[in-house]
């Protein structure tokens, strides 16, 4: 089952919260470990994941987030500082569960040859310059993603 197909994984990462950043990086690195190839197309807030020194500073907001293990009522969630509190708690849970940091996963993705594609259009929308992104990122658009994905890729969006 191994060598007949060129298996590839084409991921869209559109969100830049702490929790949303994990699945694309976990799946892309796992794909490399399984002798697949992978690309992540970072668009909209997902671009925050690949900003220089940003991966370990992503946050999670308790507001309108009833799925948190310790749900915070929205009336409390709007208070100043609650996002920092929720982020600290989630980082603690991650650490206790010995989950790799996002920067580590990002390093492993790069080392393993995952293509990191930053969406030009949303960079323009959000005023993000190429210099603000980590090294090794390529810039592209929808066609870049689709051209990669159309070659029998598993395509996922987060």
């Amino acid at each position, binding site marked *: 089952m191994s060598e007949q197909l060129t298996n590839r994984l084409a991921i869209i990462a559109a969100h830049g919260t702490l929790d949303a950043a994990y699945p694309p990086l976990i799946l892309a*690195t*796992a794909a490399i470990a399984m002798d697949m190839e992978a690309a992540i197309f970072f668009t909209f807030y997902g671009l925050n994941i690949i900003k220089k020194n940003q991966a370990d500073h992503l946050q999670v907001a308790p507001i309108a987030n009833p799925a948190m293990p310790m749900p915070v009522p929205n009336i409390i969630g709007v208070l100043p500082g609650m996002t920092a509190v929720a982020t600290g708690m989630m980082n603690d849970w991650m650490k206790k569960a010995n989950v790799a940091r996002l920067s580590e996963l990002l390093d492993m993705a790069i080392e393993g040859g995952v293509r990191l594609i930053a969406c030009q259009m949303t960079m323009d929308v959000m005023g993000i310059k190429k210099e603000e992104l980590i090294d090794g990122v390529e810039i592209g658009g929808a066609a870049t993603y689709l051209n990669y994905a159309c070659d029998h890729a598993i395509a996922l969006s987060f």
Partner: protein
Amino acid sequence: MSIAADQTLDCSGLACPMPILKTKKAIDGLQVGQVLKMIATDPGSISDMDAWTKKTGHQLVATEQENNKFVFYVKKMK
């Protein structure tokens, strides 16, 4: 069961996807026919190692469970 391993990799305490990432790296460093002993505590690694060996074509020679540890013997096939 005791199986001779050429290398041991301890992934105790590590969460998904680290055990398979480290297993992949360790297997890359072995010669064909050599056996890697990988120890993990993540219960998900039972399913993941089965899937990983099926996908990569390496052979899961044996799996053992000792207390809360899972021990996998993987033979490099290519």
